[in-house]
């Protein structure tokens, strides 16, 4: 399948222009990809270090439905870590636990060495975590520019009076807002729709705008819940390229949920497989591909009867 080359072309250039570096803005962008000698640092050297994110014995139930049961997971700095599993396996719940939207019934989330019973959502951006949602969570009434720029909101320190009068910190922030946002828009090839209302874009582009909103915050950890859902094969491979490029450029660690096994196998460093809220396999794409339980649960073709009994089991019948 031919890859759209214009996207890759756009990635060749540095994402942030020199003058932005001069202002000392994107701290996360500066390591790894700037110095040639350091190439590949994100992927290899991090292996020895403590994981950026780890889950310990996470359990979560909704009424009688067990969404997550005793999940352990570790995510190394700089890797693309996929989570796959059938519908209702608990993948989104896991992302919601990591981002603090859900509070797990038991277990702990460790982020950059700090343990949380519930991750504080309102400080998530400050902790260097950004996410996208399975169902689009854009701000429909804002332009693409403002949607993406809103990803910088956590840095804003000017107050409303300063902003209204255009004095003090708000001026510099306005400058940063425009320069950072425009560069991310260019990176993700969204410049042409910059001033459109986000709600009026086709679905695939809205997904990309959401990725841009997450990326503009320069997160250490990027949580993507089915970023390619509902896309055509062409759009999917384009999105996969963007995810990979984002990791390479920003040395961001990526946790990726995706149903398309082909995309996942090609993109991920390690894959965890969930089923019924349990982790049934964890390893490199090759290991997972050859795991019998995975084949049974997910990759193999489950018969209708099986699917039915799975639903019944979930409902606790």
């Amino acid at each position, binding site marked *: 399948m031919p890859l759209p080359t214009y996207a890759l072309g756009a990635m060749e250039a540095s994402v942030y222009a020199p003058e932005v570096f001069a202002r000392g803005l994107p701290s996360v962008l500066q390591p790894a990809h700037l110095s040639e000698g350091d190439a590949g640092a994100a992927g290899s050297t991090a292996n020895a270090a403590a994981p950026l994110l780890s889950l310990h014995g996470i359990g979560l139930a909704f009424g009688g439905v067990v969404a997550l049961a005793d999940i352990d997971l570790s995510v190394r700095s700089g890797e693309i870590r996929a989570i796959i599993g059938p519908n209702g396996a608990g993948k989104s719940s896991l992302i919601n636990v990591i981002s603090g939207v859900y509070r797990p019934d038991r277990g702990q989330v460790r982020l950059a060495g700090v343990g949380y019973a519930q991750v504080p*959502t*309102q400080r998530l951006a400050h902790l260097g975590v950004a996410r996208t949602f399975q169902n689009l969570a*854009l701000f429909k009434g*804002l332009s693409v520019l403002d949607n993406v720029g809103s990803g910088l*909101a956590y840095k804003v320190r000017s107050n409303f009076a300063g902003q209204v009068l255009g004095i003090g910190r708000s001026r510099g922030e306005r400058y940063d807002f425009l320069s950072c946002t425009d560069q991310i828009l260019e990176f993700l090839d969204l410049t*042409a729709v910059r*001033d459109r209302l986000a709600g009026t874009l086709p679905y695939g582009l809205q997904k990309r705008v959401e990725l841009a909103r997450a990326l503009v915050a320069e997160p250490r950890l990027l949580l993507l819940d089915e970023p390619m859902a509902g896309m055509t094969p062409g759009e999917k491979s384009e999105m996969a390229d963007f995810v990979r490029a984002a990791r390479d450029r920003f040395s961001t660690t990526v946790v990726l949920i995706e149903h398309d096994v082909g995309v996942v196998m090609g993109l991920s460093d390690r894959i965890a497989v969930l089923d019924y809220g349990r982790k049934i396999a964890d390893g490199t794409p090759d290991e997972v591909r050859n795991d019998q339980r995975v084949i049974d649960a997910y990759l193999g073709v489950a018969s209708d009867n099986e699917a039915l009994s799975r639903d019944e089991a979930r409902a606790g019948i």
Partner: protein
Amino acid sequence: MAAIAADFSTAPVLPKWIAPVLLLAVAYGVVPLIGSSYLFEAILLPFLALGLAGVGLNILTGYAGQVSLGSAAFMAAGAFAAYNFNLRVEGLPLIGSIFLAGIVAAAIGIVFGLPSLRLKGFYLAVSTLAAQFFVQWALTKFSWFSNNSASGVIDAPKLSIGGLALDGAVGRYLFALTIVSILTFLAYRLVSSQTGRNFIAIRDNETAARIIGIPVLKTKLLAFAISSFIIGVAGVIWAFAYLRTVEPDGFDLDRSFQILFIIIIGGLASIRGAFFGAALIVVFPLGLSRLSGFLLGDVFDSGVLDMSQRIVLGALIILFLILEPDGLVALWDRIRRRLLFAWQST
């Protein structure tokens, strides 16, 4: 990527500031010269006060997505606070009283905005009713607020700025126009600022807003505060410049609904919309009553006429909302685009 091709219909767009500047030039330079006192007293003064109240409510409801039925309470709070500051604080200029009145309204707005941290939509709207009933009750119950006047109706102080008396119809109009213009300009700046974007983000997706680091609770309360400040000042204009009396009765639930209608009819999340809506709400009943008085005045008594006006107005509002749910602003923009297009293609 056909999808990306944006709609670059290159209509000749005038700079954004031209229309408001022209409008202000007419409002200051022409209207005072040619306007009758009926125009000022019956149309422009209530229009300005209600338009400003609409701007205030639109910030809260249209932009930040928090529905409120307490607008009249904040108007009342502003009006009575300004009256009392003016009465009790020696040497405080009128503008100072008005500013402090806005602050008082903002503080009350924050208190009654606290439920918004837990409640949404309809439930929040009902809880803002508490503000409506509480404020009206307190103003009637404690006669201190009305300076122990027997009737509860008190004369507003005469308007003046820096010794310049603005007591006639034109003076009060200019006074109101100036305050409304300044606050509207600041409101416009606000909604296109980072804070304004935060308002919209919270309205459109609160979870996503929290995740990206918008301080949701603080921002909601800020919306209540700013909105109530503006509505409070609108209340001062209503009482001091338009009615020239201060009384709790004028700030009842009907008024709250009226302001809500104004922003819905005018267009939610639009500063201009508040004034479109206010114009319709003020002018339409006047026109209707003239018309019906003219046509049917001899046949029916005024009570029946009044009732039927309300019915016609209500029906028109419903009809309008079905045909143009985005409000007068959307209608206006569409007509303007058509005209521009027609003009271009000739």
